[in-house]
């Protein structure tokens, strides 16, 4: 008898709490400074306008595809909005795990009336993808290395030049970007890179180039590692996301400078999972419309040095919220920084990822 | 017992403190002649086990010197002392068979295999466990484990064997049987045994001499019978056997005798043991079986007492009485099947000889 009462009371409580917290919105992101910038620029002002909404952050973006697949299999979607990189968005969209959107209907137009589809332009790489920022994977180097005799690296191939720039490097523990850089520095023209990489010989060439620095490389798997390694003088040059390097240089005032040459652009943005109930979908859509308008995207750049995905936001990028420095020159899209950039081919990697990754792991383990 | 050799064991001014503030052993001097069975008897915390552990080498003496066959051993590690030891819970090695346990002291002495086997066999036969060599200790009963422990302590022919409450874990009947067995082994082998116990019956049954410990001091060192008959102080009288206490004051001294006045004015004659003179407070000690009902007029002490309680115990009757205001006064009456009935509430005359009544130091 008592058990029954307890169960009844428990279920009643559960029902009550779901009812009371009906306005919860679970937003998935990457944690750290990036998530903080989203909170400051998007959700804080939104919650001020809609006090009944409670934002719950989940720092699972790195495993978003796997988790959404699992949720889909279990038939219970608990996330409302997910921040993912473009390649993951394409994958999720392909598999029907992300919802297609109509940019002109679901997203706000620019202040001058330009429709969203034009304002975002070709950054709308998938019909499910709502772009937020342009970021790049690029290099930072220490400016106080005595062995370099006053020279500073200004070319991507300086990473492979152990004679002029001795010292340890840090690279990401995956083939993407590293293989491309290796081929570029092995004399392959930019637009030939993926054609060459498709062949066995091309892959062997890339590995051979990487072999020349392999014993000087520290491999990272979390974006925060390279800034730490640079700060600790463990490496003299290393790749990571440009926003991480910005905070290392400008916020922590470390003697580190940017090497923008051959930076690899990538996009990050929102997707809405398929299968949300009507009321939650309406709430999320309303938030997304607000969070991706011209002003909000420009606001995010006050907190982190990633370029807003809308053309109309660029002129609005101002000064850093606390440091007060001009943010525009720190954007990867700034003309001075974007003199030589590399476009990462999502579709190509979708095909070759499994194969090259196996080879890359075997190469690493050797 | 004592022969031409010096003492097998000698404690010389030995003191022991664990914390640097209190002494658990206070200035111990003790000689144990070869072949003696000496028991250290006392309540827990009296220092007896500490004395044994210092002898075995597991506790260093804080001060003083211990001699083994006239050789100082303070700096000799335990394994070089060549002393056999039986522990409270036997400490048989659980991962070895009985035979392996017995062979252990022989192996560490690098004795030949054949000789080992021979000795182990003889030791097992000595304790009547000839067929148990391959068993594990856990497969033996408590009494059997006890015998193995004794055999192991003796198998390497030590001249001195220490036993630390070895019978404590056995039930009463087995304990009594083992007491005789150990006594017989001692008699047959002629080794010196130092035995620690808090059980006075055990001590009286087995020992040549008993050292009664209390408060870090040997209260009395003597043979079992004189310990019972002639206790030197109230502690020993209390600790050994049953005892009636009567508190009073010495009013007259006459050679080895004295006259003591109790609280209610009763005057009793007593053997002057541990009082110095007139006016001293004293506690009279009197064994319950030495008190007689219907005493003759010639008895040294004659008083009247009221019977408070009668307990029938088969071979004797235990009578609790109120004598001179003390209602814990106990008399043991042998059961001779006499007609005369004692009744609760009766006031009867009782008496005892002055030699049975010892005037000892006052308790509290």
């Amino acid at each position, binding site marked *: 008898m008592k058990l029954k009462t307890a169960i009844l009371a428990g279920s009643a409580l559960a029902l009550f709490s779901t009812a009371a917290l009906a306005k919860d919105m679970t937003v998935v992101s990457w944690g750290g400074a990036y998530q903080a910038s989203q909170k400051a620029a998007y959700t804080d002002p939104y919650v001020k306008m809609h006090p009944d909404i409670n934002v719950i952050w989940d720092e699972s973006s790195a*495993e978003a595809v*796997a988790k959404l697949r699992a949720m889909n299999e279990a038939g219970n979607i608990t996330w409302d909005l997910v921040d993912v990189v473009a390649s993951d968005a394409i994958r999720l969209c392909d598999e029907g795990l992300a919802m297609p959107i109509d940019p002109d209907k679901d997203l706000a137009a620019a202040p001058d009336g330009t429709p969203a589809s034009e304002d975002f332009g070709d950054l709308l790489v998938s019909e499910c993808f709502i772009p937020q920022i342009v970021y790049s994977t690029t290099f930072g180097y220490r400016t106080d290395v005595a062995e370099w005799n006053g020279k500073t690296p200004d070319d991507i191939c300086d990473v492979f030049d152990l004679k002029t720039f001795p010292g340890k490097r840090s690279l990401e523990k995956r083939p993407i970007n590293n293989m491309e850089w290796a081929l570029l520095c092995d004399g392959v023209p930019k637009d030939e890179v993926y054609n060459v990489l498709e062949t066995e010989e091309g892959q062997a060439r890339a590995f051979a180039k990487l072999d020349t620095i392999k014993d000087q490389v520290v491999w990272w798997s979390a974006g925060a590692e390279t800034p730490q390694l640079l700060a600790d003088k463990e490496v003299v040059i290393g790749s990571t996301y440009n926003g991480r390097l910005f905070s290392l240089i400008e916020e922590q005032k470390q003697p580190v400078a940017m090497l923008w040459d051959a930076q690899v652009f990538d996009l990050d943005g929102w997707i809405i999972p398929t299968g949300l109930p009507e009321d939650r979908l309406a709430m999320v859509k309303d938030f997304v419309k607000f969070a991706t308008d011209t002003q909000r995207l420009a606001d995010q750049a006050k907190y982190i040095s990633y370029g807003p995905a809308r053309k109309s936001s660029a002129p609005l990028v101002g000064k850093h919220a606390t440091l007060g420095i001009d943010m525009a020159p720190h954007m990867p899209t700034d003309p001075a920084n974007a003199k030589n950039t590399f476009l990462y081919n999502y579709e190509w990697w979708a095909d070759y990822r499994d194969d090259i990754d196996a080879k890359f792991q075997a190469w690493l383990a050797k | 017992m004592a022969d031409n050799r010096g003492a097998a064991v000698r404690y010389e001014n030995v003191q022991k403190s664990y914390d640097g503030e209190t002494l658990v052993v206070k200035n111990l001097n003790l000689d144990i002649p070869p072949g003696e069975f000496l028991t250290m008897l006392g309540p827990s915390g009296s220092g007896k086990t500490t004395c044994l552990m210092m002898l075995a080498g597991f506790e260093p003496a804080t001060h003083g010197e211990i001699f083994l066959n006239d050789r100082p051993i303070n700096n000799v590690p*335990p394994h070089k002392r060549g002393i056999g030891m039986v522990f409270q*819970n036997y400490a048989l090695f659980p991962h070895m068979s009985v035979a392996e346990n017995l062979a252990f002291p022989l192996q560490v002495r690098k004795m030949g295999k054949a000789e080992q086997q021979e000795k182990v066999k003889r030791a097992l036969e000595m304790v009547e466990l000839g067929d148990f060599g391959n068993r594990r200790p856990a497969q033996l009963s408590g009494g059997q484990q006890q015998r193995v422990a004794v055999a192991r302590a003796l198998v390497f022919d030590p001249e001195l064997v220490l036993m630390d409450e070895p019978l404590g874990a056995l039930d009463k009947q087995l304990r009594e049987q083992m007491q005789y067995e150990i006594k017989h082994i001692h008699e047959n082998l002629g080794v010196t045994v130092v035995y620690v116990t808090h059980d006075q019956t055990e001590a009286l049954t087995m020992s040549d001499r008993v050292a009664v410990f209390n408060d870090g001091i040997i209260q009395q060192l003597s043979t079992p019978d004189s310990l019972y008959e002639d206790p030197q102080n109230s502690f020993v009288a209390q600790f050994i056997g049953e005892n009636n206490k009567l508190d009073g004051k010495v009013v007259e001294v006459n050679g080895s005798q004295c006259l003591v006045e109790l609280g209610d004015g009763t005057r009793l004659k007593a053997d002057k043991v541990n009082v110095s003179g007139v006016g001293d407070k004293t506690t009279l000690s009197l064994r319950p079986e030495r008190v007689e009902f219907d005493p003759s007029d010639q008895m040294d002490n004659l008083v009247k007492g009221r019977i408070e309680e009668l307990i029938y115990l088969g071979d004797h009757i235990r009578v609790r009485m109120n004598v001179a205001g003390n209602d814990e006064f106990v008399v043991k009456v042998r059961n001779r099947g006499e007609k005369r009935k004692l009744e609760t509430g009766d006031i009867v005359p009782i008496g005892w000889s002055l030699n049975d009544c010892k005037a000892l130091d006052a308790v509290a």
Partner: protein
Amino acid sequence: MSEASDTVLTTQDGRPLKASLRKALRREKLRAFLLIAPLLLFVIVTFVLPIADMLLRSVENSIVEETLPKTVQALASWDPTSGKLPDEAVFAALAADLKVAVKEKTHTRLGSRLNYEQTGMSSLFRKTGRHVKKMKEGPYKEQFLEVDKDWGDLDVWQTLKRFSPPYTAGYYLAAVDAQQTPDGIQMKPEDQRVYLLLFGRTLFLSIVITVSCLVLGYPIAFILAALPLRTSNLLMILVLLPFWTSLLVRTSAWKVLLQQQGVINDFLVWIGVVSNTDRLVMINNQTGTIIAMTHILLPFMILPLYSVMKTISPSYVRAAKSLGATDWTAFWRVYFPQSVPGIGAGAVLVFILAIGYYITPELVGGTSGIFISNRIAYHISSSLNWGLGAALGTMLLAAVLILFIVYDKIVGIDNVKLG
């Protein structure tokens, strides 16, 4: 008390005694069952089902048949060794299947699945999916070849045919660096073999970690067991400290200590043991993994050792010494054998925890200090090749079970004690 009437014993109210007893016992049993029911349910939901799911996933391959049912049927009559492309009927079936699949958005998932077996399948299916809606009524073969010339590649069809059955050993083959080719099972090319190496390394490093935990933990447990309870409890808190610090704090601490510009290297350079140019590499390699994991897993060695040693009475060693054994002999012949059950429990615990670890190796292991679990985690959360992840996981599970059996045969499983 009731009298025994005839042969059937009854209780006072006339019920048969046996029935009454059964009833009473049933109530007891039901109560006992209800008490463990939550745990049982918990174990089934959180342990048995996931493992069953993993076993199933490692061989399950119904995605091909479910996505392309007609094609699979049509392919049944095609001989992959004929050297000829399948006939028009197969292409027609493929077109019909893909039209459905595109609507249900399952074709890209199939592409990802087949891409594990053959590079290029992913884009082939995505690209074809975009065009299949616009395809005209037959003949289809030319239209497919127009969309992507890969449909004329014999390898594509052979792969499709080979992975048509609802169950496959392909994941297990991949997990041992082998693959199914038209000529039977073969090892993968040298430059793609990695799993056997990682399995071997995982076992080797786990053994090294277990041994170093034992070497470091045994004396600590020995001292703790010999100390008075108050002191040992206090020191035990220090032993358990690694449990209470967050992983990130610990990792940062190791980095500060172990890296080339770290505290230990600075100190060694300062006292002149190593020169400034040859600083030791103690992190981002196997050394880092061994140090970090030994640190994390040490308590799992110390606790069972301690609780077993606590039960070893000091009188055993005293007895041994009184019987003439030196300190070492007393320890080695008397104390140590009695602590073996603790060593067994600690070693099994540490070893099994070690071979499943992946976060710490990922953070401090560099490339030479990572475990098979890192690849499992990669396939589960990143490449989404769950089948391969499950196969690797199952093999790891099997390896643990085999080791358990070997341990049981050599040492005996009942010779493991937690106190």
